[in-house]
């Protein structure tokens, strides 16, 4: 399974990539803003995406909407410091599957991704 990590922070992108302990993920690509994310998403067709929200060029909720329009089966996990409920609800309305608040631990990350992978497999199984 391919995964795209979208975050404008280099240290966060590297942390997510380093702390993933899931055999299902075989290829990881990254992007540092929403516009780059759309380009990478079209090129690599990842099944799973982690998405920051506060980013330059194109912010995350808009990017979620664009990616969901390109491939509605892509499972998007928003990983953001924006901790209010309205932001999480907006992200889900735009097409995100779930929300993980920064800062997060390695186990928080892997637990959230396990749920995303299970959902992605369920989507594929239903086709």
């Amino acid at each position, binding site marked *: 399974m391919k995964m795209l990590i979208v975050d*404008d922070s280099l240290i966060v992108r590297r942390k997510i990539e380093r*702390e993933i302990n899931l055999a299902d993920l075989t290829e990881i690509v990254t992007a540092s803003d929403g516009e780059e994310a759309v380009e990478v998403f079209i090129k690599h067709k990842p099944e799973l995406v982690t998405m920051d929200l506060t980013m330059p060029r194109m912010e995350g909720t808009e990017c979620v909407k664009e990616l969901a329009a390109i491939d509605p089966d892509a499972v998007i996990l928003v990983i953001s*410091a924006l901790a209010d409920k*309205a932001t999480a609800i907006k992200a889900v309305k735009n097409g995100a599957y779930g929300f993980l608040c920064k*800062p*997060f631990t390695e186990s928080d990350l892997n637990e959230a991704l396990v749920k995303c992978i299970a959902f992605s497999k369920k989507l594929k199984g239903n086709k």
Partner: protein
Amino acid sequence: MITEKDIEVFIDGIKHYFTTATELNIVVETPYLITVNEISVNDYTGIIGISGERKGFVLVTASEYMLQDLVLSLGEPEASPNLIYDVIGELANTISGNARRFFGAGFMISVPLIVMGQPERIGSVRDTHGYVIPARWKSFSFQLVISLI
């Protein structure tokens, strides 16, 4: 106008960041009021502009030594200049973003502006007030400054 509750929100946020990200507690010292032009910054400063229902800024300023240690504590094998530059912005962003749990979605935050050394200007009005929240992580002192109306 900054209230006691506002200060509490940011103290909780900064404690939460270090406890979760580094598994180490910080010590927060007594906050104090200053005017914005009195702000004294350290080697690196991450500044978040605030707009919407509140206006102003949140900044975190820390020494290069502390940020090197923080980068290593986050699991990096070495503290490159790029990562030191990045981590101060992410710290300011995370603390400001987490504050929306209390302030709500109308508390709009900018992407971080990162400054090395003394910035020419912080905020748009020089005689506005801010609260300095001094803190210590390991043996390092650092400061969170909030200026909101």
